[in-house]
């Protein structure tokens, strides 16, 4: 911290405490009234009384001022403090303190979460030294369930469930539904998704994007399990490989069962898109192609794959139904990249958000989100989607809420958290309402209501 800034901040506190190391090697100190002489870069301090508190002029002293606001029943907030180090000279009943260096933290300027991220390397050093001291491996821990949830980013599976369940529902409307293969499809798709999440962490750690990120949120910046030392990169790579093998084995089984070349092709494309997302040499997300990769993978590939498992063939109606889902899932990635943009740029990860200006990012968001709804209306108008899928238009206000949130919080990673949550909800709600639309259509057809069915 610059001394000018430290003195300016010090001036905002009602009192400070002076501290030094006494002749017995113990720190000692007391509160002291003070006056900042910013023009001369010094602080005038009232001398604490008593022989015990003779502030030495021959060694470094520190001056610290802090603040909290007590919150009864909760604890406190508004944490901030500033500490300056320097020497004192006696001046009658006062001291003249001339600071030479300073440090401080104000949670209003640097949120606690960011402060914690910036000190993560210190935690890693601590465990390394503790391991040496105790002669046994010491590392941070989490209960296995929480660790797996965090490492795989399990809650993001909604991005898989939406297209896969939609594909199964569309197939059911076309008269094909087998519960066992439907279940296996969900498991295989989920495994690919989790494998992708874990692989993404492995490569973002390897290529430097995640270690450089000091503003991760629950929706961005990766799982952090490697950076925190909860799992090693090798363990994460093994987990990713296991999940890919699981997905591949189930997928091959489904290909053999359905004897569908289309399914084989879709499966190969899906795994290729998943691997190419962050893995060299393609590293699509590093080249501004991550959104397209995700849109294809979590839109047409998953939805058509699920459809083909049931029916054995592709259909134009299923492809059209996958397009709004594809756009909205790509927008999840797109918005989640906003708080990561500085670290991504530093690591050479040229995402769309890194490439575009903030105004362009927000405009592209609105255009794409509205495009998803236009596609639903167009699909119904063309007779490719059933009329009840228009239910999805109910979610339109969520898109505008995200748009306004981006305008307000674009530069605030933690302010963006609620915007990212709303954007994820938009995908989930639209997907859920499309699914509901198909269920209504199936029920209506069964009841002989041709217009709705």
């Amino acid at each position: 911290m610059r001394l000018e800034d430290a003195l300016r901040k010090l001036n905002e506190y009602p009192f400070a405490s002076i501290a030094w190391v006494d002749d017995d090697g113990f720190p000692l100190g007391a509160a002291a009234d003070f006056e900042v002489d910013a023009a001369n870069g010094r602080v005038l301090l009232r001398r604490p009384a008593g022989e015990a508190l003779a502030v030495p002029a021959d060694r470094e002293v520190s001056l610290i001022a802090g603040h909290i606001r007590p919150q009864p029943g909760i604890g406190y907030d508004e944490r901030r403090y500033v500490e300056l180090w320097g020497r004192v000279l006696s001046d009658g009943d006062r001291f003249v303190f001339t600071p030479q260096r300073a440090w401080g933290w104000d949670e209003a300027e640097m949120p606690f979460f960011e402060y914690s991220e910036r000190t993560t390397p210190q935690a890693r050093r601590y465990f390394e030294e503790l391991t040496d001291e105790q002669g046994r491996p010491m590392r941070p821990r989490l209960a296995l369930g929480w660790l797996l949830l965090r490492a795989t980013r399990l809650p993001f599976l909604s991005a898989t469930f939406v297209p896969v369940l939609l594909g199964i529902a569309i197939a059911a409307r076309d008269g094909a539904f087998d519960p066992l293969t439907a279940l296996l499809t969900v498991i295989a798709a989920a495994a690919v998704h989790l494998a992708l999440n874990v692989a993404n962490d492995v490569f973002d750690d390897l290529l430097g994007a995640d270690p450089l990120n000091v503003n991760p949120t629950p929706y961005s910046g990766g799982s952090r399990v490697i950076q925190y030392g909860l799992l090693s990169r090798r363990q994460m790579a093994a987990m990713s490989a296991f999940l890919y093998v699981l997905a591949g084995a189930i997928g091959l089984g489904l290909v053999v069962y359905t004897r569908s070349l289309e399914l084989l092709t879709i499966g190969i494309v899906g795994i290729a898109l998943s691997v190419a997302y962050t893995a060299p040499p393609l590293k699509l997300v590093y080249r501004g192609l991550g959104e397209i990769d995700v849109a294809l993978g979590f839109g047409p590939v998953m939805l058509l794959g699920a459809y083909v498992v049931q029916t054995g063939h592709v259909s134009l109606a299923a492809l059209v139904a996958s397009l709004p889902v594809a756009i909205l899932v790509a927008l999840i990635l797109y918005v989640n990249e906003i708080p990561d943009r500085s670290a991504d740029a530093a690591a050479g990860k040229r995402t769309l958000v890194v490439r575009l200006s903030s105004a362009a990012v927000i405009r592209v968001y609105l255009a794409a989100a509205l495009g998803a709804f236009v596609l639903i209306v167009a699909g119904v108008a063309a007779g490719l989607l059933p009329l009840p899928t228009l239910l999805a238009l109910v979610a339109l206000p969520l898109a505008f809420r995200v748009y306004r949130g981006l305008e307000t919080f674009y530069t605030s990673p933690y302010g963006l958290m609620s915007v990212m949550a709303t954007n994820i909800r938009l995908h989930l709600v639209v997907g859920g309402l499309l699914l509901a639309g198909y269920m209504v259509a199936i029920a209506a057809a069964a009841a002989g209501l041709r217009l709705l069915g």
Partner: protein
Amino acid sequence: MGWLPAPVAELLDAALVADLTVVGRDGGPVTHPLIPLYDGERIYMTSSVLFSRKLEHIKRHPRVAVAITDPTALTHPLPGRATIQGTAAIVEDDPHSTWERVLPLWRAKEPVIDRFLGQRFALPLFFERAIIAITPLRCLYWADGDTSRAPSESRPEAAEAA
């Protein structure tokens, strides 16, 4: 039991924050605002491994001071101020759970900590912690908080003799 004067013990119980000053690598003072937890004998503080440089300093030089100086950072108003010198020991045999032995004292001052602890998976490193256990050896106390007047001084031997 402890020997600290009753008003100082009351200050420790009421303080939401205290200045822990340790001796840094270069031999100078380094101060850290932390919650003081007093069990009637020792003063405890806990430090996340994220902010563990103070632990390195204490291991190298265990002489420390705890000062209660902010009259607004108390659970209820008290006029006094105090500085307590002592020796510190770091308890870190298992940073994942050992610190939980001071959780009842911590909870009493910062009840919201239980909510954060319930989301431990979100802040895993914050809840990897060490305990700083401080044995008081000397106490300076300003009854009215005015440090322009000499403090009253007490030590364990004098307290025991009395």
